[in-house]
């Protein structure tokens, strides 16, 4: 009996020694820097999740193909917040932070981003948001937004409505979440300064297809202009139904996507937005390189959500990781990327963007990019006003 036990322990010892010597962790597993993403992979916003993940994956593939950053390869891990569900976002964040130990998370939508921000602070993890636009995302530790927020763009919607449309009575229709409510609040606040009155405020569910009740109430309020705090495909459905129900007032907003244009069709004509616009047809060299690579990888023209998340990896994370690797640090270690981001911000973090022109990220988490007022003419956006120092100038 004793001899058998001795043999068993000897065999286990030999096996353990062999395992330790013969099968070290693969080089790739040791070297990989994990990038977490919490996106809308299912639900009405699944389109965003798809294009955002594609944008980031393209940058990661390009970096890995070129040998990584100082030999460190990148890997993307995606969790689903089910199109804006804060609870699902927190569950995904816990998995990324506690199990995968990611040092950075790319997020989208205002509600999940807000919900996971305290967890990121606790774990010293950098949060980059390229989708959510709620003004509540400003001034949050570890969180940096690469999209102009509603508090930055919505005032120009009111400026346009009162200046060009001469609107005195404005109605709003907006997402019933932090992003949409942020736009509505900014419109109301700016309206009070510019002498117009908000006659009807109608929230709607994200991804709704039927706006008959809201539009009936808006029509009854007889507004001079309708301002939307709505995003993605919803814009197309609203425009189609608003025009069919006989709402002839100009419709303004803060977002336009090619898919919404396809859904809205002719009803989109004249729709005007104030936005930091990504134009895939611009002649800028960085834009062209990105658009060509995206088309080659996915057979599709990228829109601005893909551009934002490509930019996160290529123009924000890549230089941060390179600096860490160059000084002999470990970018996978908690707090390293966040610390490097804070150092970069203190020295003005400005870089050439795929939008064309420069982008600057500010310490309060906001971003500056070229802004403009665009109008749908035909089936495309046309620049009708440049925004310079807080004022709209005719093109």
């Amino acid at each position, binding site marked *: 009996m004793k001899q058998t036990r001795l043999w068993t322990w000897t065999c286990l010892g030999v096996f353990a020694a062999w395992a330790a010597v013969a099968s070290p962790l693969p080089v790739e597993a040791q070297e990989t820097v994990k990038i977490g993403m919490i996106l809308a992979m299912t639900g009405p916003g699944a389109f965003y999740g*798809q294009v955002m993940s594609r944008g980031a994956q393209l940058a990661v593939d390009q970096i890995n193909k070129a040998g990584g950053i100082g030999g460190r390869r990148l890997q993307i891990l995606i969790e689903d917040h089910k199109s804006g569900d804060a609870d699902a976002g927190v569950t995904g964040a816990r998995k990324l932070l506690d199990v995968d130990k990611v040092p950075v998370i790319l997020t989208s939508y205002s509600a999940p981003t807000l919900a996971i921000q305290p967890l990121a602070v606790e774990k010293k993890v950098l949060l980059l948001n390229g989708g959510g636009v709620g003004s509540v995302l400003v001034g949050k530790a570890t969180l940096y937004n690469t999209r102009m927020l509603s508090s930055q763009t919505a005032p120009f919607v009111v400026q346009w409505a009162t200046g060009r449309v001469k609107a005195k009575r404005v109605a709003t229709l907006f997402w019933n979440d932090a992003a949409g409510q942020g736009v509505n609040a900014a419109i109301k606040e700016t309206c009070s300064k510019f002498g117009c009155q908000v006659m009807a405020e109608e*929230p709607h569910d994200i991804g709704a297809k039927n706006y008959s009740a809201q539009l009936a109430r808006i029509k009854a309020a007889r507004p001079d202009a309708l301002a939307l705090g709505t995003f993605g495909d919803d814009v197309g459905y609203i425009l189609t139904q608003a025009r069919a129900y*006989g709402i002839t007032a100009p419709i303004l907003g803060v977002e336009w996507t090619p898919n919404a244009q396809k859904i809205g069709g002719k009803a989109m004509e004249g729709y005007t937005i104030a936005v930091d616009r990504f134009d895939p047809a611009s002649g800028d060299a960085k834009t062209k390189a990105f658009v060509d690579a995206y088309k080659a990888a996915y057979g599709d023209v990228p829109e601005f959500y893909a551009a934002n998340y490509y930019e996160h990896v290529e123009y924000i994370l890549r230089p941060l990781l390179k600096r860490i690797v160059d000084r002999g640090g470990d970018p996978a270690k908690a707090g390293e990327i966040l610390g490097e981001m804070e150092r970069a911000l203190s020295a003005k973090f400005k870089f050439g963007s795929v939008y064309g022109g420069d982008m600057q990220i500010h310490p309060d988490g906001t971003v500056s990019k070229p802004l403009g007022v665009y109008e749908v003419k035909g089936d495309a956006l046309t620049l009708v006003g440049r925004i310079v120092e807080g004022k709209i100038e005719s093109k």
Partner: protein
Amino acid sequence: MLALAAQLAANGLITGSLYALLGVSWGLIFATTRIFHFAHALTLTVAVYAAVVAVDRWGVGLPAGFVLAAAVGCLFGLATERVVYRPLRRVDATQLNIFLASLGLLIAGESAILIAFGPQARELPGFPISGIALGPVAFTTTEGLWLLASWALLLLLIGWLWWTRYGRAIRAVASNRELAQCVGIDPERISLLVFAVGSALVGVAGTLLALRDTASPTIGVQPVLAAFIAVFLGGIGSVLGAVLGGLILGLAENMGALVLPGHWQGVIAFVVLFLVLIFRPSGLLGVRTR
């Protein structure tokens, strides 16, 4: 205010008509088989995607797209009954087991559609969408089609159920399965028949819906939830009850916007259901049981 009330009433009538068609399509299956067929939402989705592929990709005309949606819906419903529900009944699965299987099928099916077609909304082209104004009331051509098509199908179905042999057999099984068996009606065959008819109807209803809402992998759930509410409002086992339930649901959702913001529609639907179930648990036209 009167103009707003008229507009909301018109919206309610239009939406309610489609809810009535959806309610009848699901209620027919539930009343006859007692299967809580949640995967009805998947039947709707599959049928809509069949129509979208046929019309948008193969260039088939929209009327043919509707016929195809009905046929695909019918076949999918039959396959669900044969492949999923019947084997479960044979091993004496409880209603809860069958419900869970149905829910699982819906989730798996939606995911499969998401993988196959992607998350983007897909347009169902071929129908000119414009506005129609009748005094203070305006609606789209699509909604006009909903109204006409829903009532045409509802009247046809009611006529078929009342005046044909198979229709009477369905009503007999829905009323009393054992007694119907005693007079020579085969409930298994009738189960297949109601799955075929209900699924074809939901295929057409889904395609009508997709004309406005476009097709997406999750298109089926919301309308089928409305169908459940319509059936429970009107009374289980009553086709006319499902029609009435659908109309009341549509009107309540829309007329509620007279006093509440438009996005409260979903809440209003459940409040109406709650009130009816409290004061008349068997539904408005349902048979009271002791």
